[in-house]
């Protein structure tokens, strides 16, 4: 039975590939069924037959993991995140095509791929509270991304004729930072946990940077005057590294503020009702 015990341990590990909700509900039963069936095979047909059993179970595992993962990603609550993930994949595939490779390009490409994988992980492995935080961060990140893009495009034209007005830069930053802070505040309120704030703010920064990078890349494909590909890639890396950090700090502060503001409130929408919207 040592072989069977080892196979059970392997199967337990494989079960981790299923979506969290499916795993929490069925993993114990599946492991139990696997063990019972394996024991029956080992007793009736011999231990070596377990290899064939493991192979057929492996095939079953592969097909059903894909099915459950696809099922999980079909949920409306994950719709935005799924599109963001597709967007990342397209970006990662398209960006290195036909570009002048600068020294920063591989680093920026790696950062983009990393974010693509992060989104894939986030869309399938997080609990409801964290997914809510990401949803909120996505919404406000998209808004801040549009503001940042508008500022960058406007700034480019203005700079080409002189210096950029400081008030334009100042107000843009206020709006962008404001979006990330609101994301943190809202997420903290919706999930009733202050710690959701930093996640929403951080994610808002990521989405904002991705929107900006995509728009800059799209501009490269037009005949409009704009920055070179090298500058776009360097800016991509810079935005993707700094925006999440700033967003996380602002979101955390906003989350704490939400916590302080809601203290003493007993309404069902305030803190104290876990998972409340």
């Amino acid at each position: 039975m040592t072989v069977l015990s080892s196979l059970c341990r392997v199967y337990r590990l494989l079960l981790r590939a299923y979506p969290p909700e499916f795993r929490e509900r069925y993993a114990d039963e599946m492991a139990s069924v696997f063990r019972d069936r394996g024991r029956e095979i080992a007793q009736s047909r011999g231990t070596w037959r377990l290899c064939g059993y493991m192979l057929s179970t492996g095939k079953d595992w592969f097909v059903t993991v894909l099915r459950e993962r696809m099922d999980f990603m079909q949920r409306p609550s994950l719709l935005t995140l799924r599109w963001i993930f597709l967007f990342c994949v397209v970006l990662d595939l398209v960006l290195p095509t036909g570009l002048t490779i600068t020294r920063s390009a591989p680093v920026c490409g790696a950062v983009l791929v990393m974010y693509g994988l992060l989104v894939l992980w986030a869309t399938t492995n997080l609990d409801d509270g964290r997914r809510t935080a990401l949803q909120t961060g996505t919404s406000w990140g998209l808004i801040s991304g549009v503001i940042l893009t508008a500022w960058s495009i406007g700034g480019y034209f203005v700079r080409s004729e002189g210096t950029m007005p400081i008030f334009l830069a100042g107000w843009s930053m206020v709006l962008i930072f404001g979006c990330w802070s609101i994301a943190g505040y809202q997420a903290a309120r919706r999930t009733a946990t202050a710690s959701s704030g930093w996640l929403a703010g951080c994610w808002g920064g990521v989405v904002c940077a991705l929107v900006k990078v995509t728009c800059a890349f799209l501009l490269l494909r037009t005949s409009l005057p704009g920055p070179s590909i090298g500058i776009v890639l360097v800016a991509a890396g810079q935005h993707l590294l700094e925006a999440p950090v700033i967003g996380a700090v602002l979101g955390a502060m906003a989350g704490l503020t939400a916590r302080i503001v809601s203290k003493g409130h007993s309404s069902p929408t305030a803190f104290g009702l876990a998972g409340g919207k």
Partner: protein
Amino acid sequence: MKKPPVLLPLTPPVFHILLALADEERHGYGIMQDVARQTNDGLQLGPGTLYGCLKRMLAAGLVEESEERPDPELDDERRRYYRMTSLGRSTVRAEAVRLAGAVEAARSRRLFSDGKASS
């Protein structure tokens, strides 16, 4: 709650799982064994297929989890038992009628050449 025609045709695993639950409630491994018996080992459900189907069948209201737990001395009390709902029963009946119609159509076209199934 969906009506049987909406759910038809059933996939072979779902059909055989419902058949397994037609006469008594069973746990996962019991369902797996009964499906293998029904099909002369022609359909071997893996744990992923079995519980993926059960998840969808629970959501569709075809089966439900039994609240009764077996005697700990006779069975593993961690096992969950499943039973068929009235919707599940009407659905499997409708699917059986549909399959019977398909078999009849095949028979009328003399597809059972060796005559074994034509009696």
